[in-house]
């Protein structure tokens, strides 16, 4: 990246590039080496960062709003104010002591982890096969899987529900996990990523006498870090945030997930905003954690992919 001429890409990138090349303090002359230009570039750089920070703040607004509202009292939520007038942790206390959120989090975590792990294995294997192994009907089968993206859940609802009733899987974790295995996106991501990995690594493994599975497991999968991280983030989040299927399939409170728990604060004519927001803050922390952990692998994976030459 550094080899590319910085000036012509527009202000943010130019500023960014200078930062990378060590011009952060503005001490040395920039690559242009024209005295007056250094100052203007520095201004642009500061401006670019200010703009990006502003954009980021914009992206954080819902979360900040959530936190702020969770610290208000109910009458206060009716009026517009950025910060609470009377800071109160009452909502957090109520949410944690009067409702079984520990149980909901346990359920959500268990289900989301199960769905994510199964998807990683299945989509990994499938993605590898669709990318690298040759077998008749491969394209048609792959297109079939991809086509599932077109099917609205609401269309599948009645048939799938009747099926699960027949198999006695209503109000079971198994039924829920099965129905949430919508593999298309993950499979596609994995396949696309495997397509970009050079064939010679795999050839080498095969010459060493490794079988297909071993090649996949020992050579290909470790190289697919970024895709695995992306799949993890997407699947975990998709499972954690699901309300539609959970509300239909998980019918008793001992099976409730976090999202079903949150719905307890929304009533016909009013919403218990502070409690809802407090519970939302609690509910969002696990996904934030998953995201922060795996996006780092995402970066690490990027580095390894960079040197593959």
């Amino acid at each position: 990246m550094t080899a590319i001429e910085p000036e012509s890409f527009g202000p943010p990138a130019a500023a960014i590039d200078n930062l990378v090349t060590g011009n952060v303090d503005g001490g040395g002359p920039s690559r242009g080496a024209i005295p007056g230009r250094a100052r203007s570039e520095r201004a642009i750089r500061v401006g670019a960062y200010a703009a990006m920070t502003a954009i980021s703040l914009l992206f954080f607004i819902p979360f900040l709003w959530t936190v702020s509202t969770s610290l208000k009292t109910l009458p206060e939520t009716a009026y517009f104010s950025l910060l609470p007038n009377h800071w109160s942790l009452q909502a957090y206390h109520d949410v944690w002591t009067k409702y079984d959120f520990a149980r909901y989090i346990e359920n959500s975590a268990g289900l989301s982890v199960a769905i994510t792990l199964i998807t990683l294995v299945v989509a990994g294997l499938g993605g590898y096969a669709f990318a690298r192994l040759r077998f008749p009907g491969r394209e048609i089968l792959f297109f079939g899987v991809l086509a599932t993206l077109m099917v609205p859940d609401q269309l599948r609802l009645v048939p799938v529900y009747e099926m699960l009733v027949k198999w006695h899987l209503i109000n079971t974790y198994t039924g829920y996990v099965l129905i949430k295995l919508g593999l298309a996106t993950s499979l596609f991501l994995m396949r696309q990523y495997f397509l970009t990995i050079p064939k010679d690594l795999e050839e080498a493994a095969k010459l060493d006498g490794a079988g297909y599975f071993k090649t996949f497991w020992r050579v290909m999968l470790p190289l697919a870090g970024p895709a695995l991280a992306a799949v993890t983030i997407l699947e975990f989040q998709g499972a954690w945030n699901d309300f539609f299927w959970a509300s239909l399939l998980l019918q008793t409170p001992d099976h409730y997930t976090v999202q079903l728990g949150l719905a307890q604060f929304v009533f016909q004519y009013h919403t218990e905003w502070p409690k809802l927001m407090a519970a939302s803050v609690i509910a969002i922390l696990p996904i934030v954690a998953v995201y922060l952990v795996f996006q780092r692998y995402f970066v690490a994976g990027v580095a390894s992919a960079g040197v593959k030459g």
Partner: protein
Amino acid sequence: MRRVLLTFLVLAIAAVVATTAAQARPHRTAAGPSGNVVLSGWASSGSEFDFLTNVVQDFEKKYPNIHVTYQPINGNYPQAMLARFASHTPPDVFYVDSSVAPDWMAAGVLQPLNSYFSKFHFSTKPFFPRLLSGFTYKGQVYGLPKDWSPLAMEINTSMLQKAGVGVPTTWPALIAAAKRMQVTNAVPGGAPICLSADWARLLPFVYQAGGSFLNKAGTAPVLNTPAAKKAINFYVGLATSGLARTPDQLGSGWCGEALGKQKAAIIFEGNWALPYMHDTFPTVSYATYAMPHGRARGDLGFTTSYSMAKDSKNKAAAWTLLSYLTGAQGMKKWTDQGLALPSRSDVPPAAGRSVLIKEAPYSRAWSFFPGFSDVYTVMNNDLTAVFQGKKDVQGMINDIQAATVKALKK
């Protein structure tokens, strides 16, 4: 392989023996029904959950052999209930909103109750007949109203004072009061009246004008009449003249919120507004009055029943619970604090609710025919269009008439 089969066979036999043994064990015949009953509903507020839990505890004290599991359902209630009906695992006793009752009664998911009435000498006489009729289908009763509410007129009393007008009791007086409020700027940054683009708020005015939505037999729509048109034009006129605004224009989710935020002085809502105001806007002064009248008095009654599932596994105990909750004693306990109004004439309402109860004789149930929700969707979408000047009143009436005819045909 043979050993596996053998083990399987032994296990299967054991299972069969165990189940038969369990079934053969005599039930405790001590005092009436026993066992577990699941009770479900939505919770319209946090206090509703606590209240019902209390009532249920009282029930269990009285009937120690019956254990009640109270499981409120969150989110989309009709959707969640349909799922439970379809899997034959519904709660035993649950809420049914009067507006979906015709669909559910026709779908055959509810238990008809007439045989229980005669068997247990349970009289339905004390229930307000117009509420009960919302849960009656082809001569069978499928639910008993657990409570109800008409619409009433809630007015911000200090704004009324500021404008220097009395409480309006007729349509012309309502317009006069609203105009006076506008002139005196009694509602700064808001509007004198909050009106929803909702036929569940407009229809009382149609009744007040002497009109109706359906004919007496309930077989045809009759909105294309001078009386109905007069009411619709009056309602729409309030909104288009600026005397009234919709909740979203007032930065609110519904008119109760607009009243609370002091963005509107006059609203037309039911008993549900009272606990809401108490919890969310404790400092706003307001009072509840009867709906204004036109040529006649008229109002809508919104009600919810307790019904029993056709698939209930323990109907005897379910009936015991249902008849307790809708009986005089249970209903008194439930409505005592004013969270809801009693649907039986032999249970006195909580203090300060007499204005609402007096609407009972003029109130018709918000319950029409299977497939009404299709019509309701047309009604409200068209009404928003009329409010926003995208459609005229006659066009809306034509759409609704057509949709109603279509829905009644099915």
